[in-house]
């Protein structure tokens, strides 16, 4: 058993490579690597012979922190995993805790969470496509999509009070109900989004430069994708329609009608196109959610988990005590362990939670799609040109917060 291992980065730089090849360091201080990924590439001419992808520059000890906080206090940390679609992370965590507690959320909360999941998915896909085409020089497409994203963030800000890190979920429900006029504005934004997504299709789909940069670049088979653990749009781009929303429906997905878009070749172009098609599906799902949105409360009426109304905390002693105990002591979750996975915009986002019966998680592990994707990305870089590194990396949609935790 080997006990000493060489240092991760410098050992690769210092080792004696093939004398005919050049070792190039890309990142982490590079705008296209999102500031957190380092790729050490061994080049022969312009071709990447070998690539070593190194992450960890954004590691903040999320899993250690979670063991020292009560369940409600973990929610703001989950926001900071995938900060492009923070609500999805919130909901997986809440789902895991609620299943351990054995509580069922209200029908209104179920549909609202589904709606917000899809709304965040649009924001996430839009960000990914915008960033990846901008890195290839498509500035107009970037600005169009960023406009859509900002409308969505402003709109979520109206609902949750924060643009990016919403912390909107509560164990057993949501922080508050929809404000007046929120759904009317939602429809306006969806129509705006459809117009702008159509413009992107017009700008990119048959664009000679875009096709030359992305078609047949970093292509892979389904077997390759499964071997390297790719999930989400990356796996679907190879033609396999694996989608947890269809295969093991959670929230209200079993009541929605939607298609699972798949690609053909699993190359950069397919990954772009699958994401664009998923935006269309999400818009249709949001409209279905709005139509079926039931009335009633958004949080369960269970004094063990739900915080009382703020107004009552100031006027009734029972509510004050309940509030105090929930904030100071936290929710006591029965002992058990659970693995809950949702289809996050990037792929399977799993939370493995172990409770020992106290108010803090004994162990909370995140199966983050970005981290697994980075583990297999070198296979998509090797054999292609060094100029393909950035478009391929862009099409993976690596989110540093989620990758490094």
């Amino acid at each position, binding site marked *: *058993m*080997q*006990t000493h*291992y*060489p*240092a*991760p*980065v*410098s*050992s690769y730089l210092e080792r004696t490579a093939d004398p005919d090849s050049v070792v190039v360091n890309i990142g982490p201080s590079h705008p296209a690597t999102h500031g957190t990924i380092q790729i050490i590439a061994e080049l022969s001419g312009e071709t990447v012979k070998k690539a070593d992808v*190194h*992450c*960890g520059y954004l*590691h903040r*000890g999320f*899993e*250690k922190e979670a063991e*020292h906080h009560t369940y409600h206090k973990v929610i703001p940390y989950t926001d900071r995993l995938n900060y492009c679609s923070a609500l999805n992370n919130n909901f997986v965590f809440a789902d895991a805790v609620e*299943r351990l507690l054995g509580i069922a959320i209200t029908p209104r909360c179920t549909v609202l969470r589904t709606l917000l999941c899809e709304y965040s998915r649009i924001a996430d896909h839009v960000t990914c496509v915008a960033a990846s085409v901008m890195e290839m020089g498509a500035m107009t497409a970037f600005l169009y999509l960023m406009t859509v994203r900002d409308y969505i963030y402003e709109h979520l800000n109206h609902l949750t009070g924060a643009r990016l890190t919403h912390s909107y979920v509560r164990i057993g429900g949501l922080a508050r109900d929809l404000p007046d006029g929120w759904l009317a504005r939602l429809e306006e934004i969806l129509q705006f989004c459809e117009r702008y997504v159509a413009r992107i299709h017009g700008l990119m789909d048959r664009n000679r430069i875009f096709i030359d940069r992305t078609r047949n670049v970093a292509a892979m088979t389904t077997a390759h994708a*499964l*071997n*390297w*653990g790719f*999930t989400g749009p990356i796996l679907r781009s190879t033609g396999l329609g*694996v989608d947890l929303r269809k*295969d*093991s429906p959670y929230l209200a997905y079993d009541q929605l009608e939607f298609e699972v878009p798949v690609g053909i070749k699993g190359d950069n172009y397919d990954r772009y196109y699958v994401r664009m098609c998923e935006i269309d599906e999400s818009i249709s799902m949001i409209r279905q959610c709005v139509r079926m949105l039931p009335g009633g409360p958004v949080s369960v009426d269970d004094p063990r988990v739900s915080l009382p109304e703020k107004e009552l905390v100031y006027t009734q002693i029972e509510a004050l005590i309940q509030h105090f105990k929930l904030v100071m002591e936290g929710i006591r979750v029965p002992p*058990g*362990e*659970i*693995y809950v*996975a949702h289809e996050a915009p990037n792929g*399977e986002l*799993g939370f*493995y939670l*172990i409770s020992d019966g106290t108010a803090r998680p*004994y*162990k909370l*592990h995140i*199966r983050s799609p970005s*981290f*697994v994707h*980075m*583990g*297999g990305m070198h*296979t998509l870089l090797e054999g292609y040109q060094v100029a393909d590194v950035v478009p391929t990396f862009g099409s993976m949609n690596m989110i540093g917060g989620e990758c*490094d*935790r």
Partner: protein
Amino acid sequence: MLRDALTTALNGLFERTGESFGMPVLELRPENIVPVVNRLRAEFGFELFLDVTAVDYPQRSPRFDVVYHLYSRKHNGRIRLKVSVPEDRPVVPTLTPLYGSARYMEREVHDMYGIGFEGNTDLRPILLYEGFAGHPLRKDYVMDMEQPIVPYRE
């Protein structure tokens, strides 16, 4: 029913079987992990290696659990495998020959818990930096532990 099929097919290769929120759980000895996963992949279609992590129980002997999650498209289900390893020899065989995705995740577990994966030759730190002392997700690693200062590279 997946659980019944699994327990029949793999009889003798696992120690205990259970179920956790609808997911079959198998507890194995370290030497059985490779044959079991091999058969799970070949016979039950567990093609997607989702996750590997560890859990630290400092009061218990053996101290660590290594926990695997796999997904089968054929059965549309997940399975959890648990392997207990002692503190003085925290080693399990690697699964990298079977799944490429195990490569990165085993590096992370090695980082965080100091668990070795026999046969994985690339266990360089991944989320931690070079020169980090200790294994931060072990329960005896206190939150405000100070780390040695890493010198500037020339």
